[in-house]
């Protein structure tokens, strides 16, 4: 399958010299008309696409302050050039954040600035041509919208915003990406990315209940569409079947059960992921988000809690109130929405949960900060809670924990290589190469501290690492869910004796926390 070479890992991540064109060939499958049209995009490249693209660029720069300011403000200082994992992993200069921005900026300058209209050569402005469009399609699908460049730019220029705008323009001219747009279509039709319909979802959750009861002796419920539950859990659909995601879902279930919080999944909003963000489409992102509002109203819940998913948490934490709020019909005592880690952390603080840490003694753990959680959201009430809360949880349930190198964690974290709508097999080379800086950080802690596993709270990260770890000589099961660790260690009431009485108290217990 692999017709490319897996990069050799260095002891410390080094900055490669520029090698033009190494990733020119990489671009994802283009969406067919049947995929494009339900999202409101033209089926194929429109006749007058040059003008449509330029007009759309103008429209977007009037709608998004970020886009306009970022396109104007870059001074080409070069501070971001070595910050992108795709540049570090591929050496292709168009994967340097500023060069990626320039692909759009040169067209913006040509049509929307005096300097570019009068002196295009001088300021590097170019006409909207087929080559430009092809470059966009290739390199704006080599950006995982991870925002690492934004952290290090003196003006906070966020290449993710530029990539989103570029993808929106490409959709507007009829050149959409198959992977993302097909998935959004499934959410509209069925309710989740996987296209898992309600009966199948019900079966899956029932099977899970049996399995969990067999394993731990406690009848942990995984309710679906249960009206009047306190909590609506919105989780990435990968949690329903993929490894190690499902172990995380089991963890959430055990936490809710043990805390006596009644909860439910919704078949209408059975997906936390929102690929509308990846394609830069406010309208599609809004429509996907509205399903969560509708589900919350319909089920009459008091709180909304999100499962482990990175970009979903960004949309939830940063955008949900904007897109689908206000949530004045929910319990004002709780933030809307909450992250499952916030819930678990709170319960730990209150002493509601008890753990047997030794259950995780077979592992030495490290933690991968997922980009969208780290750089585009928060947890808890203090800035930086998104770093401390998951780590606190891990340290509460595990004895052996070490952090990776400082320049690869917290807000300097390296992307897994598969975020931003790139988690598709047609981009495998990019995904493997883009994972290089993260792999180097992993290798350091494996070699120095005997780390055996890495925990994460993002469905995309988990799937991506499952795929790319083996390329670098590590086991695919090296990646674990944070709530999988919780699940391993949590002491369930009545676990030994089957716990018939406990089941009743748990089910009847009013909301705690």
């Amino acid at each position, binding site marked *: 399958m692999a017709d490319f070479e897996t990069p050799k890992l260095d002891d410390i991540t080094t900055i490669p*010299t*520029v090698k033009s064109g190494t990733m020119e060939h990489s671009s994802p499958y283009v969406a067919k008309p049947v995929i494009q049209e339900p999202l409101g995009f033209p089926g194929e490249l429109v006749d007058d696409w040059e003008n449509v693209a330029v007009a759309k660029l103008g429209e977007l720069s009037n*709608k*998004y*302050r*970020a886009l*306009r*300011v*970022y396109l*104007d*403000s*870059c001074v*080409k*200082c*070069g*501070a971001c*050039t*070595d910050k992108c994992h795709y540049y570090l992993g591929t050496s292709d*200069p168009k994967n*340097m954040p500023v*060069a990626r921005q*320039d692909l759009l900026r040169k067209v913006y300058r040509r049509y929307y*600035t*005096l300097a570019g209209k009068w002196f295009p*050569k*001088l300021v590097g402005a170019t006409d909207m041509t087929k080559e430009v469009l092809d470059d966009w399609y290739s390199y704006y699908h080599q950006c995982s919208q991870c*925002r690492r460049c934004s952290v*290090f*730019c*003196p*003006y*906070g220029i*966020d290449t993710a915003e530029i990539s989103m705008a570029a993808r929106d323009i490409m959709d507007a001219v009829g050149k959409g990406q198959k992977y993302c747009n097909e998935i959004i279509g499934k959410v509209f039709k069925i309710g989740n990315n996987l296209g898992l319909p309600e009966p199948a979802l019900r079966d899956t959750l029932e099977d899970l209940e049996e399995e969990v009861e067999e394993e731990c002796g406690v009848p942990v419920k995984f309710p679906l569409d249960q009206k009047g539950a306190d909590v609506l859990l919105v989780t990435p659909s990968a949690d329903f079947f993929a490894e190690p995601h499902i172990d995380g879902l089991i963890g959430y279930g055990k936490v809710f059960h043990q805390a006596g919080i009644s909860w439910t999944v919704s078949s209408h909003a059975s997906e936390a992921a929102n690929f509308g963000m990846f394609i830069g489409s*406010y309208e599609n992102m*809004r*429509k996907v988000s509205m399903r969560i509002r*509708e589900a919350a109203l319909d089920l009459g819940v008091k709180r909304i809690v999100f499962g482990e998913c990175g970009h979903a948490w960004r949309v939830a*934490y*940063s*955008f*949900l*109130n*904007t897109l689908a*709020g*206000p*949530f*004045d019909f*929910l319990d*004002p*005592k709780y*933030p*809307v929405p909450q992250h499952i880690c916030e819930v678990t952390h709170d319960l730990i603080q209150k002493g509601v949960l008890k753990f047997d840490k030794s259950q995780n003694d077979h592992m030495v753990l490290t933690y991968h900060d997922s980009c969208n959680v*780290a*750089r*585009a959201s*928060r947890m808890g009430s203090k800035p*930086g809670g*998104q*770093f401390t809360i998951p780590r606190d949880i891990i340290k509460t349930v595990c004895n052996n924990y070490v952090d990776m190198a400082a320049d690869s964690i917290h*807000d300097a974290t390296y992307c897994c290589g598969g975020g931003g709508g790139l988690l598709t097999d047609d981009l495998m080379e990019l995904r493997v190469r883009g994972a290089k800086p993260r792999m180097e950080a992993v290798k350091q802690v494996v070699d120095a501290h005997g780390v055996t596993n890495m925990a994460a709270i993002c469905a995309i990260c988990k799937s991506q690492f499952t795929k790319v770890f083996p390329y670098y000589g590590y086991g695919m099961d090296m990646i674990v869910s944070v709530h999988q660790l919780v699940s391993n260690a949590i002491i369930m009431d009545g676990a030994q004796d089957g716990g018939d009485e406990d089941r009743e108290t748990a089910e009847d217990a009013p909301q705690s926390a």
Partner: protein
Amino acid sequence: MALTGIYAFLFYLAFVVLVAGLGYKIVQYARTPAPLKIPTTPAPTTRSGVALRMGREVVLFESLFRSNKWIWIFGWLFHAGLFIVLARHLRYFTEPVWWWVDLIQPFGKYGAFAMIIGLVGLWARRLLVDRVRYITSPSDHLMLLLLTAIGVSGALMTFVNHTDIVAVKAFFLGIMGFEFASMQPLPGDILLLLHLGMVVLLMLIFPFSKLLHAPGLFFSPSRNQVDNPRAEPGLRAHDSRHVAPWAVELETDRKA
């Protein structure tokens, strides 16, 4: 003297272009909505916290410091030097001269060296580091050339070939007061005329170039937004939210 008239005209023109151009861009930035909350986190949860963050970016180049020490050293030297130089220049335009402008005169003239060293360092990176060379357009070199030439010509006047600064001041106070009848002649030495000619050029291109980074920074959503998007006790009420006017128009599908 024709030269004096030409320079007076050029400065009026440059001033109008600079103010109108910058004003236009600032109004445009302010009017363009930021539909989503996108601060780069961790971000302050209060307005005053954001003001502090912004202050550190403007004064210390905090993000750049984390990012790249060489660019930071040269970039900061250049801007700090530029700031001192410009502050010192205020004496040509104020009568009486403000006390603090007087205060910085003696040591402030060495700001020129900071500025020039900074510029040369940045230029060296542009030529030597392959990544930075790749992203450089001719205009980036020309901008450094222009600023270096302004700096060097100024420094030559300050340290080598003095000009009649009393006359320079009289000229500028004259055109600032629109005293055309009693226009004071500009000294004719070539260094000064070059210096001023290039300053005019800098003012003219400011609103049309990457120099927009100066106002741009203040409008950058990833740096100037407060981290308070979600309904959360203590931060944002459950019935309040951040929405752009154009986004409200999309909301035709709401029941509740």
